[in-house]
């Protein structure tokens, strides 16, 4: 039973546990022997079905591959709008999150912009989410 518990609720299978790790600066992906990275919860590699996966660190910074500034939000994000979403390459896998810069101006991410990954809260209800913040490369 202990094996079943680990497989069901262990640190490598839960989304909340993954967010906890990301918030602690210990973000990770699951990587199969064929080099496919994916985010938990996963029982197998979604690309090739491999059951062997190792826990590999996500890069703490990465580059924006694409982005959008959302003006018409879903209800839960009404207090955040307008907000920017971005897809960022963090090494073993890409991650989708909210792009936030420090100022009050509307967010304006750029493709290839360097950002750091973090966990922050949704404005309306404090629900945790993945955020990216610009990294000063000057």
């Amino acid at each position, binding site marked *: 039973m202990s094996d079943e518990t680990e497989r069901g609720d262990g640190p490598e299978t839960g*989304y909340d546990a993954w967010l906890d790790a990301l918030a602690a600066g210990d973000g990770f992906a699951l990587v199969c022997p064929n080099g496919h990275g*994916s*985010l938990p919860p996963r029982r197998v590699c*979604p*690309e090739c079905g491999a059951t062997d996966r190792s826990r590999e660190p996500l890069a703490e910074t990465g580059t924006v*591959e*694409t*982005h*959008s*500034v*959302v*003006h*018409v*939000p*879903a*209800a*839960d*994000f*009404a207090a*955040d709008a307008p*907000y920017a*979403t971005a*897809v960022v390459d963090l090494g073993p*896998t*890409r*991650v*989708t*999150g*909210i792009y936030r810069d420090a100022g009050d101006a509307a967010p304006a991410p750029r*493709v290839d912009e360097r950002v750091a990954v973090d966990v922050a809260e949704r404005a309306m209800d404090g*629900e945790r*989410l*993945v955020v990216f913040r610009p990294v000063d490369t000057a």
Partner: protein
Amino acid sequence: MTDVRVAGVGLTRFGTHPDRTGRDLFGEAALRAFEDADVPRGDVEELNYGNFMGALAEHQGHQAPLMAEAAGVRCPATRYESACASAGVAVREAVRTVAAGDADVALAGGMERMTTLPTDEVTDGLAIAADDLFEVRAGVTFPGAYALMATAYFDAYGGSREDLAHVAAKNHANAVPNEYAQYRREVSVAEAMDAPPIAEPLHLYDACPVTDGASALVFVSAEYAAENGLDAPVAVTGTGQGTDRMALADRDHLARTPAAADAATAAYADAGVDAADVDLAEVHDCFTIAEVLALESLGFFEPGEAIAAAREGETTADGDLPVNLSGGLKAKGHPVGATGGSQIAELTRLLRGDHPNSEHVPDADVGVAHNAGGTVASAVVHVLEVAE
């Protein structure tokens, strides 16, 4: 394999129907399909029905038996859900069933009611077609997901908002004569450019509207059509389906839709045609960028080339390959679970010559329908040909 014919098509007007139930909408579409087909309801052996968000919008699950009642048929009835491709997969099942000889007559189609919900709840409802953990919780909306693909496309290949505005203008122009279309008015490129942003770089006229509506199709075997003297000149000669990773971030390329390419490859092989044989197409333009991605996945254009197709007149009504002569999802409307059936209905009318835009394709023999779910994690492609 048996030759599959479209015996009859039925649509409701697409638009806002706040006082009508889903069962009434599908009932109307089915009534029209049976009138068009001249097939007795008692001969129907299967109902394949598409619906996406009925449980949210109308507090109604288990819709297939309800829709069998609405259509006046008593046969095995199943609801198919594949987001915006729900009716496409329902049609595919009906086509495969008839092609396999398991039924001589099948009813397919779909229905969606969406205007019952306020905008933020529709946005929520549509967003559930994305990955809840890694996209929706990161603020990705349905327009936002396609906006991510548009930004990636522009970055990879170039192109501009104005190119997309030409797609909107084209499809709105096509919808003007279509009696079933939600927006029968032209939209200029300048008007589209000036519209407010939804999810940048997509603005209001890059997006399809929120729509109520239904579609229904009666498919029969060619033998049944001959034995019963039916006028069913259009055949479904090819069907294909593809699947991709659910979340956009997990795809190899953020500006390509290989699920649609896989579906097209299978459908073309099934029909024995290739992209060059196609005379017209109805593609899933839930957003203007989606039409561009579809045309490239269907093999009509190389990656990076379809962005200019509307602007250069290649896909307009008088172009070499008219695309979305119905008005597309963009202007005809997009009742999510009905759309895949509507595309087959419109292609059939266009090929038969009884569509208001048939005059633009008088010699067309081969049409393609492309129906996509989510950010094309699901795709269904059908080939229709004039068989008689």
